[in-house]
């Protein structure tokens, strides 16, 4: 029986889609059978980040409305074993899918997959309700900024109201140089305000931009973000992994000095 994980944030542009892509690829690298689902109706993006936009034939709306069989809409990723993508639709009608339909879909997928990852749209409207409907647990992505942390707090409150018991926090785009100067909130500052368990910290890594340009997850690459994502995947599997030291996140020297530090 698989586990359904929703990746959400409230605020847009903090890294939900990138996280979904990389955690999906990472879990499949660790030997799990994974499907990643784009639930952002009207603004399809996960296929683009994955570099699979040319393979899209059917989508989420086709599946839930019976326009095609579930198996027809799942796109297999040729780079990763056991990784599948269910793309979203580019239709404008956001009410094309209901929370009940999402519940039915995820429970069906649970039979066959170890992990079902749902890339949630920004906001707290219907798209959000759809994405969390069938979720067993949530990964909340935030950046160390006031607006993004504020939205994360609201999202966590809504997840708790919707009986999602397991909620973990990912802090994305940390810049250690700014944290040191006192111009960016640290991991401790953020967790103190949000008071949910931390599952990952990610640096502001230009490899992520390069990866997105190319349609390639950074998970396998020798980058700080790639390692950070792989650690998140291991923690999802229940392994204890020390946090990477983001302080060494620059240049060649950092790559040879794997200074791990419990944060």
């Amino acid at each position, binding site marked *: 029986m698989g586990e359904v994980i929703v990746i959400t944030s409230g605020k847009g542009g903090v890294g939900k889609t990138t996280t979904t892509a990389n955690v999906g690829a990472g879990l499949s690298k660790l030997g799990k059978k994974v499907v990643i689902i784009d639930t952002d109706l009207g603004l399809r993006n996960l296929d683009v980040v994955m570099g699979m936009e040319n393979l899209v034939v059917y989508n989420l709306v086709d599946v839930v409305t019976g326009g095609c069989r579930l198996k027809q809409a799942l796109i297999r990723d040729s780079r990763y074993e056991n990784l599948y993508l269910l793309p979203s639709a580019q239709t404008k009608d956001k009410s094309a899918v209901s929370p009940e339909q999402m519940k039915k879909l995820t429970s069906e997928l649970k039979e066959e997959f170890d992990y079902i990852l749902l890339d949630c749209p920004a906001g707290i409207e219907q798209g959000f309700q759809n994405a969390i409907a069938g979720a067993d647990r949530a990964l909340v992505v935030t950046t160390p*900024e*006031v607006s993004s*942390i504020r939205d994360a*707090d609201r999202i966590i*409150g809504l997840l708790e109201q919707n009986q999602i018991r397991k909620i973990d926090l990912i802090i994305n785009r940390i810049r250690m140089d700014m944290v040191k100067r*006192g*111009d960016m*909130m640290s991991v401790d500052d953020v967790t103190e305000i949000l008071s949910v368990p931390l599952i990952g910290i990610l640096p502001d890594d230009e490899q992520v931009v390069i990866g997105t340009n190319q349609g390639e997850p950074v998970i396998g690459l020798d980058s700080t973000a790639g390692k950070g994502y792989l650690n998140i995947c291991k923690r999802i599997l229940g392994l204890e992994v020390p946090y990477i030291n983001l302080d060494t996140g620059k240049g060649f020297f950092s790559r040879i000095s794997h200074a791990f530090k419990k944060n």
Partner: protein
Amino acid sequence: MLKSSSVSIAKNRLRALVVSDRVQCTPSVYDHICRDLYQTLSKYVELTEDDFQVEINRSQIVIRIAGEET
């Protein structure tokens, strides 16, 4: 660690925002809640304003009075 610059401003703004989001009102209403709770409780419990503290979390409102903390 140095925290003299913009982080302390960010944290203070964020704390106020998060509390007002949680009770769905402006920060001044938070002060009203505190005052009302204090007045109500002080009818039954011996309190001083210095000992009285209200903390609003996502799922609970915690009232602390001196001597009650473990």
